[in-house]
């Protein structure tokens, strides 16, 4: 918590600090806990409702904890025409979850995103910060099994 307070102090009084603060908060906790958002509101001298309003506008912010590994399946145009849907099917088979859901053991959270900028390797999936390209359902399953072990 002390580290979180230092982080808040760093941004205090800077113009346009709301979104960077929320981003750092999310990096810190993995999501935006209600309590933390109230702290952010206090530091930037705005109402919690206003902060919540900003946070809900942007797709990046989550209000629930995510699994240990974040899987982002690209559904950009290039990935869509190259079979991104079948990756979703493969993930559903392998992990039993769909976009927006987390596995029961808290290992994986699945998200849908639009274009990761690696379109020439479509279809692609980002696991943590790493982009995996030229995937098929089979290859993706193998990658996941490696992570599980």
């Amino acid at each position: 918590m002390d580290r979180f307070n230092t982080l808040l102090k760093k941004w205090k009084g800077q113009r346009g600090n709301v979104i960077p603060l929320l981003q750092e908060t999310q990096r810190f906790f993995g999501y935006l806990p209600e309590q933390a958002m109230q702290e952010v509101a206090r530091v930037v001298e705005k109402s919690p409702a206003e902060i919540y309003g900003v946070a809900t506008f942007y797709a990046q912010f989550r209000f629930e904890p995510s699994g240990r590994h974040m899987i982002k399946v690209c559904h950009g145009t290039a990935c869509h025409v190259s079979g991104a849907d079948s990756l979703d099917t493969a993930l559903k088979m392998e992990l039993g979850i769909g976009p927006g859901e987390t596995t029961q053991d808290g290992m994986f959270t699945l998200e849908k995103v639009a274009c990761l900028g690696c379109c020439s390797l479509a279809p692609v999936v980002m696991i943590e910060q790493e982009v995996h390209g030229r995937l098929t359902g089979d290859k993706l399953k193998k990658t996941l099994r490696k992570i599980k072990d």
Partner: protein
Amino acid sequence: MIQVQELLVGLGSCGIAAGARQVYDTLIRELKDRGMKIPVIPTGCIGACHREPLLEVRLKDGSRFLYGDLDIGKVKEVVTGHLVEGSPLNEYLVPEKYDYLARQKKIVLANSGVINPESIDDYIKAEGYTALRKVIGTMRPDEVIEELKISGLRGRGGAGFPTGLKWGFTSSASGVKKYLVCNADEGDPGAFMDRSLLEGDPHAVIEGMVIGAYAIGADEGYIYVRAEYPLAIKRLGIAISQAEERGFIGEHILGSDFFFNIHIKEGAGAFVCGEETALMASIEGKRGMPRIRPPFPAESGLWAAPTNINNVETLGNVPPIIRMGGGEYARIGTEKSKGTKVFALAGKIKRGGMVEVPMGISLREVIFDIGGGIKGDKKFKAVQLGGPSGGCIPERLLDVQVDYDSLTATGAIMGSGGMVVMDESTCMVDIARYFLSFTQTESCGKCTFCRVGTKRMLEILERITQGQGRMEDIDELQELAVNIKISSLCGLGQTAPNPVLTTLSYFREEYEEHIKNKRCPALHCKALIRYRVNPEVCTGCTLCVKACPVQAVQGVRKKPHIIDQELCIKCGLCFEACRFSAIEITTGE
């Protein structure tokens, strides 16, 4: 012994995704083990993304060899075979590179894939920051603006507004404090030009920003980068601090009275924030909602101060324009569209990647001569330009030339440069549905027609792809399209119907097939297709039986399998698994 000048490894995001990091590490280790002292330069995107990971070998005699599709094993072979024993490994070379390059003209991408983006010295060696020196040492701000006007440069972010004119507006706006913003939100799915440029040559964009700031009198700048581009953000951060150390940013730039600072702002995942007024609201820490213009940002932008917003590629064009002179730049391209345009080729194209071509070239040349045509032996169907604001261009219009006005005349737009190529297996009704679902999700909700109108259009398109469409639906789509266009405040709504309108005008028969005959000619729409096993071809290998997630494919070894249509969810996994093409897809039965 051959004389190697240097080795280049493409380490853009796409290269890394394909395994270039391992190739780079292996290369370094192999050279070290052999005591070979050859410079290895990590570069940005080399362009031929379809063959990543890439390694370019440059010899002292000027000859070059590009290796593609490398992995740890192959790179070891290249070290032994080519670097040690001196004979190139033909089977791993990328043969098309040079003809792939011949039709291109690299101005903005001149350094991408050539220099180390994390080294300011490399940039300086490639004439970097000479344009800034020229501007600060010898030109007044109004002369810089004049030079931009002469060059004919138009904004590369989509709308194509003349850059010199825009700078002129901000320069003459009254206000002591002015801002310059670089739009690196690159939200169009299927577009990655700005990412490549930022990863491959971040200093060029920064130099363009400093020159722009000098011209309009701004002392503070922002680069708004989408959060999905961590590597671009990292390299920009490095470049900014290097430029500060060398006195290209900060106070008394190059000994003058001019000062300018740059901040990086990370986006938070909202497509609409690429729109300039929404982007500014987002930098200010608000919900990223567009507002009515006027006032234009040039009069009242960030925190109500005059603000100039330009796209990454627009700014990347500025240093070369200053170096070569506006007049020289204006000799490239067509009468109304000057210079070059960077395109990101993706989809069903053979050689996907980054290309930079002179304006005026035809789409056919870009797709077939440079891009190598369609992957596999399928037929070209359409090329999508301009993302959710753009449209699909059919085969018969491929000779249209790449310039703002000609592309707009087709109903598509130049857009930011994403080019997604589609073949006969892409359903155009589904593509229209896909884009509508994108804009529908990304609509900020402020304008009723954009919020509800796109939802109605999406519902209709979903109905058609599910085989429940009626012929009246087509008229209703057209009517909604017109209304959404005229009653939306920002470009998102105004252009949202474009993908539907272009597919309706060029591929109307596909809509009619879905509606009248319940057929999907591309064999894509799940509700209208069936998978079945051809008993004549099936060998009974059970691969499909194992692949099926819902046990719909049944059968025993050595006997033809069958698919239970009741259970089948049409995921296509059996089709992928079959090695004998025994699974067939039919439609309209």
